C-alpha cells in the first residue's frame, strides 16, 4: 500500500496500529506485522515512534526489526517470489530454480531495477512432498520447474505450462 495524503504519515499509522494492539501482551511482533501490512515495509521513521509508544529503547526496536527475516526495511517489488532452498526441495533440484533466477538477471534478496519483482530464498514452506516449492505473492506452488518459475517471476502465474494449474 502506498501512502497518500499528509494525514497518512508513518507516524500516524504507527500510533494507530499500536493503539489497536494495546491490550496484547508483548505486542511488538503483531504491531510490526500490522505496520508492514499497511505500509509494505517497516520504514526507519517508524522506529522512534514505536520506541516511544511501547516504552522501549530505539535500540530494542531496531534489534527486533532487523532480527527477523520477514520485516522489510525497503518496499518490495510488485511481485514477491520466494524459492525454497531447504533440503527436501534441494533433493528435487531447487538449485536449478535459483540458477534460473540468477540467469534471469535477478539476485536473491533483492528487487529488480524496474521494481517488478523481488526474489528471495526461504527455508521450508512445508510442502516437502511436492517440491520444489515456490511462494509467489503469498500463494504456494508445488512441483515448480524453471518454466513455471519464469511465469511466476513475470507475474503471470496462471499461464499453463505444465498442466498443473490453469486459470
Amino acid at each position: 500500500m502506498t501512502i497518500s495524503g499528509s494525514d497518512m504519515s508513518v507516524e500516524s499509522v504507527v500510533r494507530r496500529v499500536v493503539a489497536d494492539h494495546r491490550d496484547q501482551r508483548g505486542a511488538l511482533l503483531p504491531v510490526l506485522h500490522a505496520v508492514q501490512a499497511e505500509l509494505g515495509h517497516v520504514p526507519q521513521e517508524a522506529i522512534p515512534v514505536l520506541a516511544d509508544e511501547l516504552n522501549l529503547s530505539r535500540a530494542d526496536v531496531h534489534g527486533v526489526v532487523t532480527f527477523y527475516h520477514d520485516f522489510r526495511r525497503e518496499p518490495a517489488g510488485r511481485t514477491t517470489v520466494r524459492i525454497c532452498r531447504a533440503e527436501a526441495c534441494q533433493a528435487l533440484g531447487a538449485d536449478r530454480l535459483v540458477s534460473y533466477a540468477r540467469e534471469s538477471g535477478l539476485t536473491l534478496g533483492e528487487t529488480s531495477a524496474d521494481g517488478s519483482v523481488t526474489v528471495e530464498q526461504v527455508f521450508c514452506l512445508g510442502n516437502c512432498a511436492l517440491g520444489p516449492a515456490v511462494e509467489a505473492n503469498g500463494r504456494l506452488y508445488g512441483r515448480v520447474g524453471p518454466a513455471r518459475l519464469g511465469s511466476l517471476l513475470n507475474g503471470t502465474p496462471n499461464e499453463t505450462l505444465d498442466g498443473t494449474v490453469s486459470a
Partner: protein
Amino acid sequence: MNNSSHTAATVYVPRDSAARSVGADEVAGALQRAATRGDFAIDVVRNGSRGMLWLEPMVEVVTPQGRVGYGPVTAEDVDGLLAAGLLDGADHPLRLGLVDELPWLARQTRVTFARVGVTDPLSTRDYVEHGGLAGLRAALDMTPADVVAEVTESGLRGRGGAGFPAGIKWNTVLGCADELKFVCCNADEGDSGTFADRMVMEGDPFLLIEGMTIASHAVGASEGYLYIRSEYPDAIATMREAIEIAREHGWLGKGILGSALDFDLHVRVGAGAYICGEETSMLESLEGKRGTVRAKPPIPAIEGLFGKPTVVNNVLTLTTVPVVLAKGAKAYQDLGVGRSRGTQVFQLGGNIARGGIVETAFGITLRELVEDYGGGTRTGRPLRTAQVGGPLGAYLPTSMFDLPMDYEAFAEAGAMLGHGGIVVFDDSVDMAAQARFAMEFCAEESCGKCTPCRVGSVRGVEVIDKIVAGTHRDENLALLEDLCDLMTDGSLCAMGGLTPMPVRSALTHFPDDFLGGRRLLDIQPVQASRPIQPVQVSQPVQASGVRTEGTA
C-alpha cells in the same frame, strides 16, 4: 448417468495448502462451475488432506459404498470426470477406489490424524460426530492431577523432536503456585521435511484447541498462545477462524462446556526466524523481543513466558492429548516399542515417489517407510541417503535403513528420530555439499547468542570448502572434527549443538564425497524424461538455461 435428479452429491476437494499448491482450488472451481451451470448437483466440501500428497489434488465422492477417490485431478479433467459418472463413483483412469481401503492408508494407525482429510475442518458438527470433545469432556470430569497422571501414564513424549515425556513437564507446571500460568503451542515447524503440524492445523484445527484446553485444565493455566510460523498463511487463517468458532460455541472462553474452566487462546505469527522453533527463543519472540535462546535453567515450566510457569508443547503433542484422554492411557501405551510408546507421524518428503503422512506405531523400519510406503525416489534413480529428523538430523546410508524408528535405537546409531521428518535423496546428491549446507544454514539462522554456533558455523563452511578443495586435507579434517566437538558441547541450544550431526554423518558414511567433490558429470541419467540437477552448492552454477544436467 448422474444423480442430479435426486439430492446433490457430496464431493470433497482438499483445502490443504499442499493440495492447493498443485491446483486444488482450480479443481474445486471447475466442479463449482459445473454445479452453477445446472449440469450436475454437487455439494463441494473442502476437507483436509488424507496425506497421500502425490495424489493431490485428490477428489473424493460420497457413494453408498463409501468415499471413492480420484487423483491426481486437474481442472481440465473435471468435465470428463463428471461425464464419466464421477458423482456415482464410476470408472475412470484417475479412479483410485474406496479411499479407506487404499493400502497406503489402510495399513496405517491413524490416531492423531484420524479426522484429517475425513471432515470439513471448520464444521463443529463434523468434529463432534467424529469423536471430537470426548477427550476434553473426560478431562473436565477429572482433577488436574489425574489428567496429568493419565498423560504421564500414556508415555506420550514431546513430538517436536526432543521426545521429553509430556506428563512430567505438565506436572512441574501444575506444581507451581503462581496465579498466572500459560500454555504455549510451538507451531514454528521450520524443519525441512516436516509438514504434519501444518496439515493438522489446516485439517483438524479444533483438535489443537481441544488439546490446549485440556493442558490448561491440567496445569491451571488461563491463557494460551499458539505461535505459528509466517510461512504457513493457510494454517494461520484456519486456526484463527476455528478459534472464533470455538468461542461462539463455548469451547473457549469462560466456563468451557459448562465447567468452571476459563481459558482463552491467541494466535501469534512468527516472522521468518528458524530459531524461534527452539522453545526459549519462541518465548522471547512471544514477549516481543529478538528470538534469542535463553540459558536453561530456569526451565520454562517454572519460569517461562513473561517469567510465569509455562507448558510449551509441539502441535502434534497437544493434538495427541485428546486421544489419550478419550481412549485412556492404556490404549495409547499399547502401541509402540520400548520407551517409544504410541504412534509417530512420519513425514515422507524430498525425492520420493509417494510422499506424505504415514502415522503408525513406533518400531517400523526406515526401509519400510521409504521403500514400501514411499516407493523409492521420484526421479527413479537409486536411493542414496535419507536425512531423518530435520536439518539437524543425520544422513543415513541405505545400509542403515533397517533401523527401527524409535528414539533410543536412533540415538544409539548416532542419529535422531526427532519429529519423524524423512527427506530422501537419490544418487546424484553430493554429500560434501549437504554437509556444507548444514553449516551454512546454521550460520544463516543462528540467533547469535553463543559463540560456538554463531562463529563455529561460519568456520565450518570454510573448513569444509578447504577439505573439498584438497587444501591440507588431513589437518582440516582434524580441525572439522574438533569444531564439531566444540559446537556439540559448547552451544547453548540444539541449533549449534546438533548441526554437527548431519556434518559428521555425511563424513562417516560418505567420505568419498569429500575427496574433491563428486564427479558430477560421471552420473548418468536413469530416466531421460525427468533429469534432476545434482545439488552443487559449493561449485559454480552451470550457466545455461538449457537442461544439460546429469549428462556428459
